[in-house]
Protein backbone atom coordinates (compact mmCIF):
# COMPACT_ATOMS: atom_id res chain seq x y z
CA UNK A 1 0.00 0.00 0.00
CA UNK A 2 1.49 3.31 -1.09
CA UNK A 3 1.58 6.49 0.95
CA UNK A 4 -0.78 9.30 -0.15
CA UNK A 5 0.77 12.08 -2.14
CA UNK A 6 0.79 15.62 -0.72
CA UNK A 7 -1.87 16.63 -3.25
CA UNK A 8 -4.23 14.02 -1.85
CA UNK A 9 -3.61 15.11 1.74
CA UNK A 10 -4.52 18.74 1.00
CA UNK A 11 -7.92 19.64 2.47
CA UNK A 12 -10.82 20.28 0.16
CA UNK A 13 -11.54 23.91 -0.73
CA UNK A 14 -13.80 25.42 1.89
CA UNK A 15 -16.02 27.53 -0.31
CA UNK A 16 -18.00 24.49 -1.47
CA UNK A 17 -20.21 24.07 1.63
CA UNK A 18 -22.92 21.49 0.86
CA UNK A 19 -26.39 22.96 0.77
CA UNK A 20 -29.68 21.20 1.40
CA UNK A 21 -32.04 22.02 -1.39
CA UNK A 22 -35.81 22.04 -1.14
CA UNK A 23 -38.10 19.82 -3.10
CA UNK A 24 -41.88 19.50 -2.89
CA UNK A 25 -43.22 16.26 -1.32
CA UNK A 26 -44.31 14.09 -4.20
CA UNK A 27 -48.08 13.73 -4.29
CA UNK A 28 -47.91 10.01 -5.07
CA UNK A 29 -46.12 9.48 -1.76
CA UNK A 30 -48.84 11.33 0.10
CA UNK A 31 -51.43 9.26 -1.71
CA UNK A 32 -49.61 6.01 -0.97
CA UNK A 33 -49.28 6.84 2.71
CA UNK A 34 -52.95 7.79 2.82
CA UNK A 35 -53.87 4.48 1.22
CA UNK A 36 -51.68 2.57 3.65
CA UNK A 37 -53.30 4.41 6.56
CA UNK A 38 -56.74 3.57 5.22
CA UNK A 39 -55.95 -0.13 4.80
CA UNK A 40 -54.37 -0.28 8.26
CA UNK A 41 -57.40 1.36 9.83
CA UNK A 42 -59.79 -0.98 8.07
CA UNK A 43 -57.74 -3.97 9.17
CA UNK A 44 -57.67 -2.75 12.76
CA UNK A 45 -61.39 -2.10 12.68
CA UNK A 46 -62.10 -5.57 11.35
CA UNK A 47 -59.76 -7.65 13.48
CA UNK A 48 -59.04 -5.81 16.72
CA UNK A 49 -62.43 -6.47 18.29
CA UNK A 50 -62.70 -2.75 19.08
CA UNK A 51 -60.08 -3.30 21.78
CA UNK A 52 -62.66 -5.08 23.90
CA UNK A 53 -60.88 -6.77 26.83
CA UNK A 54 -63.07 -9.85 26.44
CA UNK A 55 -62.14 -10.45 22.80
CA UNK A 56 -59.08 -12.61 22.17
CA UNK A 57 -57.78 -14.21 19.01
CA UNK A 58 -59.06 -16.18 17.13
CA UNK A 59 -62.28 -14.20 17.59
CA UNK A 60 -62.43 -10.91 15.72
CA UNK A 61 -65.39 -9.34 17.48
CA UNK A 62 -67.47 -9.61 20.62
CA UNK A 63 -70.36 -11.07 18.62
CA UNK A 64 -68.19 -13.95 17.45
CA UNK A 65 -67.10 -14.71 21.02
CA UNK A 66 -70.72 -14.66 22.07
CA UNK A 67 -71.69 -17.01 19.24
CA UNK A 68 -69.00 -19.50 20.29
CA UNK A 69 -70.33 -19.60 23.85
CA UNK A 70 -73.15 -21.96 24.80
CA UNK A 71 -76.46 -20.18 25.17
CA UNK A 72 -78.04 -20.17 28.62
CA UNK A 73 -80.68 -22.88 28.89
CA UNK A 74 -83.38 -20.38 29.79
CA UNK A 75 -84.16 -16.82 28.79
CA UNK A 76 -82.40 -14.41 31.20
CA UNK A 77 -85.66 -12.45 31.32
CA UNK A 78 -87.37 -15.62 32.54
CA UNK A 79 -84.92 -15.97 35.43
CA UNK A 80 -85.36 -12.33 36.34
CA UNK A 81 -89.11 -12.76 36.22
CA UNK A 82 -88.97 -15.58 38.75
CA UNK A 83 -87.62 -13.16 41.33
CA UNK A 84 -90.20 -10.49 40.50
CA UNK A 85 -93.02 -13.02 40.64
CA UNK A 86 -92.00 -14.44 44.01
CA UNK A 87 -91.63 -10.94 45.44
CA UNK A 88 -94.81 -9.25 44.22
CA UNK A 89 -97.23 -11.76 42.72
CA UNK A 90 -96.88 -15.00 44.63
CA UNK A 91 -98.60 -13.70 47.76
CA UNK A 92 -101.96 -13.75 45.94
CA UNK A 93 -101.43 -15.90 42.83
CA UNK A 94 -99.27 -18.37 44.84
CA UNK A 95 -95.86 -19.71 43.91
CA UNK A 96 -97.45 -22.54 41.91
CA UNK A 97 -99.53 -20.11 39.84
CA UNK A 98 -102.79 -21.76 40.82
CA UNK A 99 -104.16 -18.67 42.52
CA UNK A 100 -106.29 -18.66 45.63
CA UNK A 101 -110.05 -19.16 45.75
CA UNK A 102 -110.53 -16.03 47.86
CA UNK A 103 -107.88 -13.72 46.39
CA UNK A 104 -106.76 -14.30 42.84
CA UNK A 105 -107.54 -16.40 39.76
CA UNK A 106 -105.08 -19.05 38.53
CA UNK A 107 -102.35 -18.13 36.06
CA UNK A 108 -101.38 -21.70 35.20
CA UNK A 109 -103.28 -22.71 32.08
CA UNK A 110 -105.23 -19.42 32.08
CA UNK A 111 -106.52 -18.38 28.67
CA UNK A 112 -105.79 -14.74 29.55
CA UNK A 113 -102.15 -15.52 30.21
CA UNK A 114 -101.66 -17.79 27.24
CA UNK A 115 -103.27 -15.45 24.70
CA UNK A 116 -101.30 -15.01 21.52
CA UNK A 117 -100.66 -11.35 22.29
CA UNK A 118 -99.87 -10.19 25.82
CA UNK A 119 -101.42 -6.72 25.41
CA UNK A 120 -104.30 -7.36 27.81
CA UNK A 121 -102.25 -8.85 30.63
CA UNK A 122 -99.70 -6.04 30.32
CA UNK A 123 -102.60 -3.66 31.04
CA UNK A 124 -103.67 -5.79 34.00
CA UNK A 125 -100.20 -5.64 35.54
CA UNK A 126 -99.89 -1.91 34.90
CA UNK A 127 -103.24 -0.78 36.30
CA UNK A 128 -104.55 -3.71 38.27
CA UNK A 129 -107.88 -5.48 37.92
CA UNK A 130 -111.23 -5.34 39.63
CA UNK A 131 -114.57 -7.06 39.36
CA UNK A 132 -115.62 -10.50 38.23
CA UNK A 133 -113.47 -12.37 35.73
CA UNK A 134 -113.89 -15.54 33.71
CA UNK A 135 -110.71 -17.57 33.44
CA UNK A 136 -110.64 -20.63 31.19
CA UNK A 137 -114.41 -20.84 31.31
CA UNK A 138 -114.72 -20.55 35.08
CA UNK A 139 -116.14 -17.46 36.73
CA UNK A 140 -114.42 -15.84 39.68
CA UNK A 141 -115.62 -13.01 41.88
CA UNK A 142 -113.23 -11.64 44.47
CA UNK A 143 -113.81 -9.07 47.18
CA UNK A 144 -110.37 -7.54 46.74
CA UNK A 145 -108.87 -5.90 43.67
CA UNK A 146 -105.50 -6.48 42.03
CA UNK A 147 -103.18 -3.56 42.73
CA UNK A 148 -101.67 -1.46 39.95
CA UNK A 149 -97.94 -2.08 39.60
CA UNK A 150 -97.00 0.65 37.13
CA UNK A 151 -95.27 2.76 39.77
CA UNK A 152 -93.46 -0.21 41.35
CA UNK A 153 -92.27 -2.21 38.38
CA UNK A 154 -90.47 -0.83 35.35
CA UNK A 155 -90.98 -2.07 31.79
CA UNK A 156 -88.25 -4.67 32.05
CA UNK A 157 -89.58 -6.10 35.29
CA UNK A 158 -93.12 -6.32 33.91
CA UNK A 159 -91.83 -7.99 30.76
CA UNK A 160 -89.77 -10.37 32.88
CA UNK A 161 -92.58 -11.40 35.17
CA UNK A 162 -94.99 -11.88 32.26
CA UNK A 163 -92.34 -13.95 30.45
CA UNK A 164 -91.99 -16.05 33.57
CA UNK A 165 -95.76 -16.55 33.81
CA UNK A 166 -96.32 -17.22 30.12
CA UNK A 167 -93.38 -19.58 29.59
CA UNK A 168 -93.45 -21.46 32.87
CA UNK A 169 -93.43 -25.08 31.84
CA UNK A 170 -93.74 -26.22 35.42
CA UNK A 171 -97.22 -24.67 35.32
CA UNK A 172 -97.96 -26.11 31.91
CA UNK A 173 -97.70 -22.68 30.27
CA UNK A 174 -95.91 -22.39 26.95
CA UNK A 175 -96.51 -19.07 25.24
CA UNK A 176 -94.28 -16.46 23.66
CA UNK A 177 -92.02 -14.26 25.81
CA UNK A 178 -92.85 -10.61 26.52
CA UNK A 179 -90.28 -7.95 25.69
CA UNK A 180 -89.89 -4.59 27.42
CA UNK A 181 -90.52 -2.94 24.04
CA UNK A 182 -94.04 -4.37 24.15
CA UNK A 183 -94.71 -2.88 27.58
CA UNK A 184 -93.47 0.64 26.87
CA UNK A 185 -96.13 1.70 24.29
CA UNK A 186 -98.95 0.33 26.45
CA UNK A 187 -97.64 2.15 29.48
CA UNK A 188 -97.56 5.31 27.39
CA UNK A 189 -101.06 4.75 26.01
CA UNK A 190 -102.57 4.16 29.45
CA UNK A 191 -100.54 6.82 31.25
CA UNK A 192 -103.59 8.90 32.21
CA UNK A 193 -105.59 6.00 33.62
CA UNK A 194 -105.82 5.72 37.39
CA UNK A 195 -108.53 3.10 37.84
CA UNK A 196 -108.39 -0.68 37.72
CA UNK A 197 -109.29 -2.52 34.56
CA UNK A 198 -112.46 -4.53 34.42
CA UNK A 199 -113.15 -7.54 32.27
CA UNK A 200 -115.60 -5.64 30.04
CA UNK A 201 -113.06 -2.93 29.28
CA UNK A 202 -110.27 -5.36 28.56
CA UNK A 203 -112.33 -7.49 26.21
CA UNK A 204 -113.08 -4.41 24.10
CA UNK A 205 -109.34 -4.11 23.37
CA UNK A 206 -108.47 -6.24 20.37
CA UNK A 207 -105.71 -8.79 20.81
CA UNK A 208 -102.51 -7.41 19.41
CA UNK A 209 -103.64 -3.80 19.62
CA UNK A 210 -101.56 -1.49 21.70
Amino acid at each position, binding site marked *: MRNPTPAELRPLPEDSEPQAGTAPTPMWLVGLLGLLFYVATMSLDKQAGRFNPRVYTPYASFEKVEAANPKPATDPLFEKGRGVYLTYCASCHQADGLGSPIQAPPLAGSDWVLAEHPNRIIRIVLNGMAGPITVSGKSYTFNNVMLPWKDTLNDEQIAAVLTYIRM*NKAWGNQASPVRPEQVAPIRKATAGRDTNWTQEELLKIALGAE
Partner: protein
Amino acid sequence: MNHGALIFLSAFVTIAFSWAGLVMTPQLQLGRLEPVPQPAPQPDYPTARPGLAQQGLQVYRSMGCAECHTQQVRPEGDVERGWGQRRTVAQDYLADRPLLVGSLRLGPDLANFGVREAGRFAVPWKYATETNHLEETEAWLYRHLYQPRGQAPRSIMPSYAFLFERRPIRPGQSADAMALRVEEGQGGRWPEQVVPGPKARALVAYLMSLRADAPVFEAPLPGAAEAAAKQSATNAPAGGTTNQVSAPISTNTVSP
Protein backbone atom coordinates in the same frame (compact mmCIF):
# COMPACT_ATOMS: atom_id res chain seq x y z
CA MET B 1 -28.87 25.34 19.45
CA ASN B 2 -30.53 24.76 22.79
CA HIS B 3 -33.53 22.51 22.31
CA GLY B 4 -33.39 20.94 25.76
CA ALA B 5 -37.02 21.67 26.61
CA LEU B 6 -38.21 20.38 23.25
CA ILE B 7 -36.20 17.17 23.51
CA PHE B 8 -37.38 16.59 27.05
CA LEU B 9 -40.98 17.21 26.05
CA SER B 10 -40.86 14.85 23.07
CA ALA B 11 -39.22 12.12 25.13
CA PHE B 12 -41.79 12.63 27.86
CA VAL B 13 -44.71 12.51 25.43
CA THR B 14 -43.32 9.36 23.78
CA ILE B 15 -42.89 7.54 27.08
CA ALA B 16 -46.20 8.78 28.47
CA PHE B 17 -48.00 7.67 25.31
CA SER B 18 -46.58 4.15 25.38
CA TRP B 19 -47.17 3.92 29.14
CA ALA B 20 -50.80 4.88 28.63
CA GLY B 21 -51.19 2.29 25.90
CA LEU B 22 -49.23 -0.59 27.39
CA VAL B 23 -49.75 -0.16 31.13
CA MET B 24 -52.67 2.08 31.96
CA THR B 25 -55.22 0.88 29.40
CA PRO B 26 -54.74 -2.85 30.15
CA GLN B 27 -54.94 -2.05 33.85
CA LEU B 28 -58.19 -0.18 33.35
CA GLN B 29 -59.56 -3.00 31.20
CA LEU B 30 -58.36 -6.05 33.12
CA GLY B 31 -57.35 -4.72 36.51
CA ARG B 32 -60.55 -5.73 38.27
CA LEU B 33 -61.15 -9.24 36.98
CA GLU B 34 -63.16 -11.51 39.25
CA PRO B 35 -63.27 -15.32 39.28
CA VAL B 36 -65.76 -16.69 36.76
CA PRO B 37 -68.87 -18.35 38.26
CA GLN B 38 -69.11 -22.02 37.36
CA PRO B 39 -72.11 -24.38 37.54
CA ALA B 40 -73.18 -25.32 41.03
CA PRO B 41 -70.94 -28.08 42.44
CA GLN B 42 -67.76 -26.55 41.03
CA PRO B 43 -65.98 -23.64 42.72
CA ASP B 44 -65.60 -20.40 40.81
CA TYR B 45 -62.68 -20.32 38.41
CA PRO B 46 -59.83 -19.84 39.08
CA THR B 47 -59.65 -20.87 42.69
CA ALA B 48 -56.78 -20.00 45.00
CA ARG B 49 -54.20 -22.77 45.15
CA PRO B 50 -54.13 -25.01 48.21
CA GLY B 51 -51.35 -24.30 50.72
CA LEU B 52 -48.69 -26.74 49.54
CA ALA B 53 -49.25 -25.78 45.91
CA GLN B 54 -48.95 -22.12 46.86
CA GLN B 55 -45.56 -22.88 48.40
CA GLY B 56 -44.72 -24.85 45.27
CA LEU B 57 -45.29 -21.73 43.21
CA GLN B 58 -42.44 -20.10 45.12
CA VAL B 59 -40.27 -23.18 44.49
CA TYR B 60 -41.17 -23.01 40.79
CA ARG B 61 -40.15 -19.39 40.83
CA SER B 62 -36.90 -19.85 42.75
CA MET B 63 -35.79 -22.83 40.65
CA GLY B 64 -36.22 -20.73 37.52
CA CYS B 65 -38.62 -23.19 35.91
CA ALA B 66 -40.30 -20.29 34.08
CA GLU B 67 -37.04 -19.67 32.19
CA CYS B 68 -37.68 -22.76 30.08
CA HIS B 69 -41.36 -23.59 30.61
CA THR B 70 -44.29 -21.41 29.62
CA GLN B 71 -47.78 -21.56 31.04
CA GLN B 72 -49.54 -20.12 28.07
CA VAL B 73 -51.57 -22.00 25.49
CA ARG B 74 -51.52 -20.08 22.23
CA PRO B 75 -54.56 -20.05 19.96
CA GLU B 76 -52.72 -21.56 17.01
CA GLY B 77 -50.95 -24.86 17.13
CA ASP B 78 -50.88 -25.52 20.85
CA VAL B 79 -54.38 -26.96 20.99
CA GLU B 80 -53.52 -29.35 18.17
CA ARG B 81 -50.41 -30.36 20.08
CA GLY B 82 -52.59 -31.39 22.97
CA TRP B 83 -51.30 -28.75 25.35
CA GLY B 84 -54.78 -27.57 26.25
CA GLN B 85 -58.39 -27.59 25.16
CA ARG B 86 -58.51 -23.86 24.65
CA ARG B 87 -56.19 -20.87 24.62
CA THR B 88 -55.33 -19.18 27.88
CA VAL B 89 -56.69 -15.72 28.67
CA ALA B 90 -56.02 -13.14 31.39
CA GLN B 91 -58.62 -14.82 33.60
CA ASP B 92 -56.47 -17.93 33.95
CA TYR B 93 -53.75 -16.12 35.88
CA LEU B 94 -55.85 -14.50 38.59
CA ALA B 95 -54.58 -16.88 41.29
CA ASP B 96 -50.90 -16.52 40.35
CA ARG B 97 -48.74 -14.03 42.14
CA PRO B 98 -46.13 -13.51 40.81
CA LEU B 99 -47.19 -14.29 37.29
CA LEU B 100 -44.98 -17.08 35.89
CA VAL B 101 -46.16 -17.18 32.31
CA GLY B 102 -42.64 -17.55 30.95
CA SER B 103 -41.46 -16.34 27.58
CA LEU B 104 -39.26 -19.11 26.20
CA ARG B 105 -40.10 -22.71 25.44
CA LEU B 106 -37.08 -24.90 25.92
CA GLY B 107 -39.41 -27.35 27.63
CA PRO B 108 -43.07 -28.07 27.03
CA ASP B 109 -45.87 -25.77 28.08
CA LEU B 110 -47.20 -26.53 31.54
CA ALA B 111 -50.48 -24.58 31.55
CA ASN B 112 -52.52 -27.81 31.70
CA PHE B 113 -50.02 -30.02 33.47
CA GLY B 114 -52.51 -31.02 36.15
CA VAL B 115 -55.12 -32.33 33.70
CA ARG B 116 -54.85 -36.06 34.13
CA GLU B 117 -57.49 -37.50 31.85
CA ALA B 118 -56.06 -40.63 30.25
CA GLY B 119 -54.58 -40.03 26.84
CA ARG B 120 -54.70 -36.24 27.16
CA PHE B 121 -51.60 -34.81 28.69
CA ALA B 122 -50.00 -31.47 28.74
CA VAL B 123 -46.58 -32.84 27.87
CA PRO B 124 -45.43 -34.02 24.46
CA TRP B 125 -44.33 -37.40 25.70
CA LYS B 126 -46.89 -39.62 27.34
CA TYR B 127 -46.81 -40.90 30.85
CA ALA B 128 -46.25 -44.62 31.14
CA THR B 129 -49.30 -45.25 33.30
CA GLU B 130 -52.69 -46.16 31.91
CA THR B 131 -54.97 -44.92 34.63
CA ASN B 132 -53.21 -41.68 35.57
CA HIS B 133 -54.09 -41.78 39.20
CA LEU B 134 -52.78 -38.85 41.12
CA GLU B 135 -50.22 -40.99 42.96
CA GLU B 136 -48.93 -42.56 39.77
CA THR B 137 -48.52 -39.22 38.08
CA GLU B 138 -46.84 -37.75 41.12
CA ALA B 139 -44.42 -40.69 41.29
CA TRP B 140 -43.65 -40.17 37.60
CA LEU B 141 -43.00 -36.49 38.26
CA TYR B 142 -40.66 -37.19 41.19
CA ARG B 143 -38.63 -39.57 39.08
CA HIS B 144 -38.57 -36.99 36.29
CA LEU B 145 -37.30 -34.26 38.60
CA TYR B 146 -34.69 -36.59 40.07
CA GLN B 147 -33.40 -37.95 36.79
CA PRO B 148 -35.03 -36.36 33.71
CA ARG B 149 -33.33 -38.62 31.14
CA GLY B 150 -34.67 -41.66 32.93
CA GLN B 151 -38.23 -40.79 31.95
CA ALA B 152 -37.78 -38.82 28.75
CA PRO B 153 -34.53 -39.90 27.07
CA ARG B 154 -34.11 -36.76 24.96
CA SER B 155 -34.96 -34.27 27.69
CA ILE B 156 -32.56 -31.38 28.19
CA MET B 157 -33.93 -30.59 31.62
CA PRO B 158 -31.32 -30.35 34.38
CA SER B 159 -31.62 -32.79 37.25
CA TYR B 160 -33.17 -31.50 40.44
CA ALA B 161 -31.75 -34.29 42.60
CA PHE B 162 -30.81 -31.71 45.24
CA LEU B 163 -34.47 -31.35 46.09
CA PHE B 164 -34.41 -34.95 47.37
CA GLU B 165 -33.13 -36.31 50.65
CA ARG B 166 -31.31 -39.47 51.70
CA ARG B 167 -32.82 -40.94 54.80
CA PRO B 168 -31.97 -44.11 56.69
CA ILE B 169 -34.62 -46.75 57.01
CA ARG B 170 -34.63 -47.62 60.69
CA PRO B 171 -35.37 -51.13 61.90
CA GLY B 172 -39.11 -51.74 61.90
CA GLN B 173 -39.68 -49.01 59.28
CA SER B 174 -40.61 -49.67 55.70
CA ALA B 175 -39.47 -47.54 52.79
CA ASP B 176 -41.43 -44.40 51.95
CA ALA B 177 -44.12 -44.87 49.33
CA MET B 178 -42.53 -42.14 47.22
CA ALA B 179 -38.96 -43.41 47.71
CA LEU B 180 -37.08 -43.30 44.43
CA ARG B 181 -34.29 -45.62 45.42
CA VAL B 182 -33.50 -47.92 48.32
CA GLU B 183 -29.88 -48.87 48.96
CA GLU B 184 -28.82 -51.79 51.09
CA GLY B 185 -26.79 -50.76 54.09
CA GLN B 186 -23.11 -51.64 53.80
CA GLY B 187 -21.12 -52.91 56.78
CA GLY B 188 -23.99 -53.30 59.19
CA ARG B 189 -25.46 -49.80 58.59
CA TRP B 190 -29.12 -49.15 58.05
CA PRO B 191 -30.37 -49.17 54.46
CA GLU B 192 -30.95 -45.75 52.92
CA GLN B 193 -33.75 -44.38 50.81
CA VAL B 194 -33.97 -41.35 48.55
CA VAL B 195 -37.23 -39.47 49.23
CA PRO B 196 -38.56 -36.15 47.94
CA GLY B 197 -37.77 -33.23 50.20
CA PRO B 198 -40.32 -30.61 51.23
CA LYS B 199 -39.48 -28.40 48.25
CA ALA B 200 -39.94 -31.26 45.79
CA ARG B 201 -43.29 -32.13 47.35
CA ALA B 202 -44.43 -28.51 47.17
CA LEU B 203 -43.26 -28.21 43.57
CA VAL B 204 -45.12 -31.35 42.52
CA ALA B 205 -48.25 -30.17 44.33
CA TYR B 206 -48.01 -26.92 42.39
CA LEU B 207 -47.48 -28.67 39.06
CA MET B 208 -50.47 -30.92 39.69
CA SER B 209 -52.59 -27.83 40.42
CA LEU B 210 -51.89 -26.34 36.98
CA ARG B 211 -54.90 -26.54 34.74
CA ALA B 212 -56.55 -24.02 32.46
CA ASP B 213 -59.47 -26.01 31.12
CA ALA B 214 -62.48 -24.41 32.82
CA PRO B 215 -64.84 -22.75 30.36
CA VAL B 216 -64.53 -18.96 30.40
CA PHE B 217 -66.45 -16.55 28.25
CA GLU B 218 -63.39 -15.20 26.45
CA ALA B 219 -62.19 -18.65 25.39
CA PRO B 220 -65.10 -21.09 25.17
CA LEU B 221 -64.28 -24.74 24.78
CA PRO B 222 -64.44 -25.83 21.13
CA GLY B 223 -67.84 -27.20 20.22
CA ALA B 224 -69.46 -26.03 23.47
CA ALA B 225 -72.07 -23.89 21.71
CA GLU B 226 -73.09 -26.71 19.36
CA ALA B 227 -73.28 -29.23 22.20
CA ALA B 228 -75.46 -26.91 24.28
CA ALA B 229 -77.74 -26.20 21.32
CA LYS B 230 -78.13 -29.93 20.67
CA GLN B 231 -78.88 -30.62 24.30
CA SER B 232 -81.46 -27.84 24.57
CA ALA B 233 -83.15 -29.13 21.42
CA THR B 234 -83.65 -32.57 22.91
CA ASN B 235 -84.10 -31.68 26.55
CA ALA B 236 -86.40 -28.69 25.94
CA PRO B 237 -85.81 -26.46 28.98
CA ALA B 238 -88.35 -23.96 30.19
CA GLY B 239 -87.03 -21.13 28.06
CA GLY B 240 -87.94 -22.17 24.54
CA THR B 241 -89.27 -19.68 22.06
CA THR B 242 -92.17 -21.78 20.88
CA ASN B 243 -95.41 -19.93 20.58
CA GLN B 244 -98.03 -22.44 21.55
CA VAL B 245 -101.36 -21.15 22.61
CA SER B 246 -103.40 -23.70 24.48
CA ALA B 247 -106.65 -21.76 24.43
CA PRO B 248 -107.58 -18.79 22.27
CA ILE B 249 -108.63 -15.71 24.21
CA SER B 250 -111.75 -15.34 22.06
CA THR B 251 -113.41 -18.04 24.13
CA ASN B 252 -113.54 -15.53 26.93
CA THR B 253 -117.12 -14.57 27.51
CA VAL B 254 -118.45 -11.69 29.48
CA SER B 255 -120.07 -13.14 32.52
CA PRO B 256 -123.59 -11.94 32.90
